[in-house]
């Protein structure tokens, strides 16, 4: 086979976990991994949506221990590499070691885009354990390409094999994605990747734009199953590449079938960009906040739009799901005060 244009990582079993409140079963993991592996997907990521150790009140408890899911994934794969995600501050090196013992190949270490230095020890440990290490800069839309490059350089200096531009909120325009990836690909010696979300309906376009300016790794999720409005749909990306003569090494019909027959039934409505999904991208709010925000809006009887826009104004970062409750309680109180004032005026 000719040389591949980029390496595809499918994150259905990690980012997709957000969309189903972290309830993947070992059987679902086996089915997805078996299908994607057979279709030739080179890397498959499996973890709680918020990475190893993410099972919590704040992000949602996993239905099945992620180590058990990883065990199923490693057992089901023939050729694909198995990756994990972890966020320093949530997961620890202890969980990384346990995952490595299970036979994973790639450790993706994620930090907010300005905080790369908290990943130094985890990237170091990943390399020491013989794993490939990826530095994953979340909410990359929040800083300029130049600032992102500084953070990318840190990850490179810690030993990362690849630095990802991560559009966690799906807030990037095509130009935003292109500028960031182009600068990093030009100035870093290691590979650069892109992880796109679809809130503005630009995930495939941004991924292809990134490819054109030097991205060597691209993330997708089958059916787009992922946080917020969902990710770059793997099958659409592969099909678009096929039509453009871009070699992915992945069988388009293979991933189309996995998407339709294995993943689509898990969440049939995936792929619709509704108001909430769009607003997350528009307000620049982390996609993983979606389900938590819906629950809080209902519980505290506040408007979802007000909730999301206020979170955007506060510039909260990945991991601050507790601020959803904070804002909801605040909005509820304001509404009660406004009502009391109205009553007061009338009397």
């Amino acid at each position, binding site marked *: 086979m000719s040389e591949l244009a980029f390496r595809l990582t499918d994150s259905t079993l990690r980012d997709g976990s957000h969309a189903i409140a972290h309830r993947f079963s070992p059987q679902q993991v086996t089915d997805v991994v078996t299908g994607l592996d057979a279709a030739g997907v080179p890397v498959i990521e499996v973890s709680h949506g918020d990475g190893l150790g993410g099972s919590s009140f704040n992000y949602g408890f996993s239905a099945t221990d992620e180590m058990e899911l990883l065990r199923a994934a490693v057992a089901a794969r023939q050729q694909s590499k198995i990756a994990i995600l972890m966020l320093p501050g*949530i997961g620890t090196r202890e969980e990384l070691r346990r995952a490595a013992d299970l036979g994973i190949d790639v450790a993706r270490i994620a930090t907010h885009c300005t905080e790369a230095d*908290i990943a130094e*020890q985890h990237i170091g440990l990943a390399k020491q354990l013989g794993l490939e290490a990826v530095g994953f800069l979340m909410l990359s839309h929040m800083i300029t390409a130049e600032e992102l490059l500084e953070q990318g350089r840190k990850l490179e200096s810690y030993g990362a094999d690849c630095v990802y531009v991560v559009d966690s909120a799906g807030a990037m325009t095509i130009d935003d994605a292109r500028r960031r990836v182009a600068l990093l690909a030009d100035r870093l010696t290691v590979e650069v990747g892109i992880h796109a979300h679809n809130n503005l309906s630009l995930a495939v376009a941004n991924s292809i734009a990134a490819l054109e300016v030097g991205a060597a790794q691209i993330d997708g999720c089958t059916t787009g199953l992922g946080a917020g409005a969902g990710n770059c749909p793997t099958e659409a990306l592969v099909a678009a590449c096929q039509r453009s003569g871009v070699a992915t090494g992945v069988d388009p019909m293979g991933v189309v079938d996995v998407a339709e027959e294995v993943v689509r039934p898990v969440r049939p409505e995936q792929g619709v960009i509704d108001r909430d999904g769009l607003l997350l991208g528009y307000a620049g709010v982390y996609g993983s906040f979606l389900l938590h925000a819906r629950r809080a809006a209902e519980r505290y009887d506040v408007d979802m739009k007000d909730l999301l826009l206020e979170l955007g104004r506060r510039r909260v*970062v*990945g991991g*601050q799901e507790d601020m959803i409750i904070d804002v909801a309680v605040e909005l509820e109180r304001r509404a009660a005060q406004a009502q009391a004032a109205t009553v007061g005026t009338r009397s």
Partner: protein
Amino acid sequence: MATPCAIVGTGNIGTDLLEKLRRNDALDVVAMVGIDPESQGLARARGYGIDATDEGVDWLLEQAQHLDVVFEATSAWVHRQNAPRYAEAGLTTIDLTPAKLGPSVVPGVNLDDHLDAGNVNLITCGGQATAPIVHAVARVSDVPYAEIISTVASVSAGPGTRQNIDEFTHTTGQALVDVGGAAMGKAIMVLNPADPPILMRNTVYCALPEGYDADAVRGSILEMVDEVAGHVPGYRLKADPVIETDTYHTPGGTVPARVIALLEVEGAGDYLPTYAGNLDIMTASAVRVGEALAAARRQEVPA
């Protein structure tokens, strides 16, 4: 008579502590020890007429007979080297590093439990901010699982914290059990780079098993917040504690409810800016522990 004490470490924490101790009647800072002659903390101490040296703890130990208490504001690694030497010199140590050699002390929970320990540890800023709340819940209900999220401004997290983030989450999570009284604990740390910097935020979730008394839980938390605010004036709830009901499958078992306390810590602005509530709560707690030690000593020594 005020208890003579020394500060070891001249960074942000040591210097903020210097400012707080200068105002304190029970504790008398007589020495400040660093290793960097250019340090701003040493210059400040000298300006206040306090013996300040960049010659490290060797100098300090020569003065040991004039001292009772040492505040360690260096790093866990340095404290592990220094601790046996302090002990040998008969100095009581209040450790602000995460070395955790001695028992953990959290004012508001167990201030008086370890006054004779010789070396007490203040856990982490997140531990000081959240263990009291877990304790407040645990004194009126079983807490099979507690979880905290500590979010601090990026600019207030120095290289020590950044390179030891696993140590922070592990030590803090353990303190929710050891000091807070939960059966299991988990801590999460988030850094937020917003400008202007955010105040330190802490969210505490406690699992509430069947039969919990909602009013007692809420009341106990409110009481504890007042208690902590007594020594950390900027410590406050953002909203009244909320109890959410649902079915929660926690690692400590399935429960029908959780209580959530949303806390904010504004620093006193002594040396560090007010957003650095995370550092302020450490120095304020250290002073409170120092006062308790001083009071215990006054009782021991007959006038």
